[in-house]
């Protein structure tokens, strides 16, 4: 083995010797760590932007028709005359909030940033398999993001047909929709390249001894995620192309015969099918929601194992569950389409698969809960966010069950119940996991530690207010309040009793925004002035902590290739002197 190590070290990358110019090192970098950080900051910025859009919407929902204070006058006459949001602008904000949060915020953060930074380190690889492609992925993402942002300045503004872009509405929408499609094509291409890269990296570049069942759960989660991206995204790619053709060239793939728009017969050939779009869209978008959650599972697994100081409960069954979850996620998509005229046979199929897919989720969540048993739990900031994730994902997941039963979905479909369901999984769920990841790996990335005090000031209000935003949504949804309503339901008699909640949710959302200030301060302050910490600050077992310095070496990560001798979570093993046994064997040799 040592010969191999020797040989690889011998081939040291030329970059180790020549200092790279600034643009090679930080802008068009091919180092997975720099690319990961680029992804991270870009994605955080988009998250903040998506949140900002939502804060404006929440104003309109709480105080319909009142001018938005401060920002209102800046939005322009076309969008918000006198600071009052117009419905067309509200719809743009809604569609772009969804798109930005999903495709430009969470996925790039969860996969692009954490995946990129951590996966090669955890498997003991010097970099991703294809560094140039990695760079291309990031830049395609950046271009796609710019197109999305630019679309706000298109005539008629940004896309306004929801993030789902259902035709015919999207087919006849203003130009922003074309920009949306173009932007999506870039993002899709970026994700496809990224996914390919991850898969090759994980399959090919595992260090000696790193067998499949010694992979940290985070790597497994990223592995399955990449498969989802690779095989599901092409369906949206195809759909986006077809919609693009409909809008630009005048085909009618999604337009049936005899449409009458505002009293005029639409001059198209017709013969298309609006439901075709929905099939293609959800063929992607359902796996996509697992793309949002699996990396979060991965992060939570790492943080929980580390901070309970004991092995994860049922690591193997978790791995089988996550693989099964990934597979099944291709089989449930039409649970978003129960009300499109679905017959008994197909609806039974999709109801069954939907309930089946809840089982592996339950197994994983139960494993997290049971992992706490017998632990010695350290309540540091990453752990708080990881622990916060558990019940929040639980609520989100549980509320998926009534939606998965078609008969119950009759009442709940397209109401705020759905909004509540998925925000519980993505916001206090995934976003909390992302925060856990940031606090957890920050010392690895910078060699410095984030402030625990500010971290706690970040966590507790966030936890409180995020529930204040999303819990009332179930109540509204059960009353039958529809989503995507410009005035939050003012028009409707059946919404009246639940209207007062709009203000509660909005105030919570703004407080949630304020609660992020300590985080932003903490992030930048710790970057500059954080306390220096040891390489393995959390006394962790996985390779990124136990075998690499903090920060890891540019372009090669490790001083020499680690050799893996055991599973990922050997904490508090009875025979070990320490509370942790690193995955690589060197520590053992040193001890011997």
């Amino acid at each position, binding site marked *: 083995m040592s010969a191999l190590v020797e040989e690889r070290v011998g081939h040291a990358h030329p970059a180790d010797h020549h200092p790279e110019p600034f643009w090679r090192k930080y802008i068009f970098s091919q180092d997975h760590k720099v690319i990961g950080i680029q992804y991270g900051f870009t994605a955080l910025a988009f998250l903040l932007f998506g949140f900002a859009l939502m804060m404006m919407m929440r104003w309109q929902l709480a105080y319909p028709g009142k001018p938005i204070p401060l920002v209102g006058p800046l939005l322009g006459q076309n969008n918000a005359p006198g600071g009052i949001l117009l419905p067309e602008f509200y719809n743009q904000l809604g569609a772009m909030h969804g798109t930005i949060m999903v495709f430009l915020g969470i996925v790039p953060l969860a996969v692009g940033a954490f995946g990129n930074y951590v996966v090669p380190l955890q498997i003991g690889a010097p970099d991703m398999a294809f560094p140039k492609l990695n760079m291309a992925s990031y830049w395609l993402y950046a271009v796609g993001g710019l197109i999305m942002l630019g679309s706000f300045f298109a005539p008629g503004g940004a896309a306004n047909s929801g993030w789902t872009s259902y035709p015919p509405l999207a087919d006849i929408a203003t130009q922003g929709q074309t920009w949306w499609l173009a932007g999506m094509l870039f993002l899709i291409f970026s994700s496809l390249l990224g996914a390919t890269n991850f898969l090759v990296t994980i399959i090919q570049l595992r260090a000696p001894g790193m067998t499949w069942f010694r992979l940290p759960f985070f790597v497994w989660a990223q592995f399955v995620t990449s498969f989802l991206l690779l095989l599901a995204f092409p*369906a949206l790619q195809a759909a986006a192309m077809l919609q693009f053709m409909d809008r630009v060239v005048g085909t009618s793939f999604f337009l049936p015969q005899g449409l009458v728009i505002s009293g005029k017969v639409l001059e198209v050939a017709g013969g298309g099918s609006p439901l075709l779009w929905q099939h293609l869209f959800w063929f992607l978008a359902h796996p996509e929601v697992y793309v949002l959650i699996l990396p979060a599972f991965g992060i939570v697994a790492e943080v929980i194992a580390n901070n309970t100081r004991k092995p994860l409960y049922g690591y193997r069954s978790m791995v089988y569950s996550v693989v099964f979850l990934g597979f099944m996620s291709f089989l449930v998509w039409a649970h978003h389409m129960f009300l499109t005229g679905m017959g008994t046979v197909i609806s039974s199929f999709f109801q069954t698969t939907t309930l089946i897919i809840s089982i592996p989720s339950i197994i994983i969540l139960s494993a997290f809960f049971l992992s706490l048993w017998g632990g010695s739990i350290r309540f540091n900031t990453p752990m708080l966010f990881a622990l916060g994730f558990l019940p929040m994902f639980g609520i989100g997941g549980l509320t998926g069950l009534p939606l998965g039963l078609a008969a119950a979905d009759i009442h709940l479909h397209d109401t705020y119940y759905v909004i509540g369901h998925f925000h519980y999984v993505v916001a206090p769920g995934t976003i909390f996991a992302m925060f856990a990841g940031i606090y957890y790996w920050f010392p690895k990335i910078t060699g410095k530690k984030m402030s625990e005090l500010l971290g706690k000031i970040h966590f507790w209000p966030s936890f409180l207010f995020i529930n204040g935003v999303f819990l009332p949504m179930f109540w509204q949804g059960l009353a039958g309040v529809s989503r995507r309503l410009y005035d939050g339901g003012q028009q409707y008699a059946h919404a009246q009793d639940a209207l007062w909640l709009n203000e509660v949710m909005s105030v919570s959302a703004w407080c949630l925004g304020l609660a992020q200030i300590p985080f932003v301060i903490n992030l930048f302050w710790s970057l500059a002035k954080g306390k220096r910490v040891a390489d393995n600050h959390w006394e962790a077992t996985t390779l990124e902590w136990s075998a690499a310095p903090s920060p890891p070496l540019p372009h090669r990560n490790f001083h020499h290739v680690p050799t893996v001798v055991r599973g990922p979570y050997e904490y508090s093993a009875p025979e070990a002197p320490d509370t942790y046994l690193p995955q690589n064997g060197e520590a053992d040799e040193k001890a011997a």
Partner: protein
Amino acid sequence: MQIPYTVEARPDTGLYNAKLGIWLFLASEVMLFGALFSSYVLLRTGAESWPRGSEYLNIPLATLNTMILIASSVTMVMSWASLKLGDFRKYKLYMGLTVLAGFGFLIVKYFEYTAKFAHHYYPSTNTFLGIYFTLTGLHGLHVIGGMIVNGYFWGPGSKLWRRDPERFANRIEVAGLYWHFVDLVWIFLFPTLYLL
């Protein structure tokens, strides 16, 4: 530290990185064209009537194009085999032919398209023509992409041969896999669009 298995195969998988990479990418391409085929089938079965390809399209030209693409696939695989046999000049010849065949294909396609436009057949005319232009257009883009890659390996990219022949042969194998896939897609497009 260099990235392992860029040239030699990893023992347990038996693959070098780029080969696994291209197959993964092709898997996503299968899903892309699969989604479009699926759209085609759904639109066709939902349509009241559907024209036969021959009502609009020129079968002899398309047959010619099929032959051209098949031939280019052979020259492509021969160029790789020549490298394996260490015959760089043959490689150049075969690769050059492959790129030329790509041009031939596009030229024929150009005549096909302009003939359609001359008859005022546009993508917007009906769903059949819409899907015809979309599928062949996307396939055409793939051909162009392949030609750029192949052209690069025929020209400036071939310098690698002298430095690292093994690695160069791998690259040609990978480029070949992509090119054959483009051929394979056409093999399905041809009957679905023209003959049925």
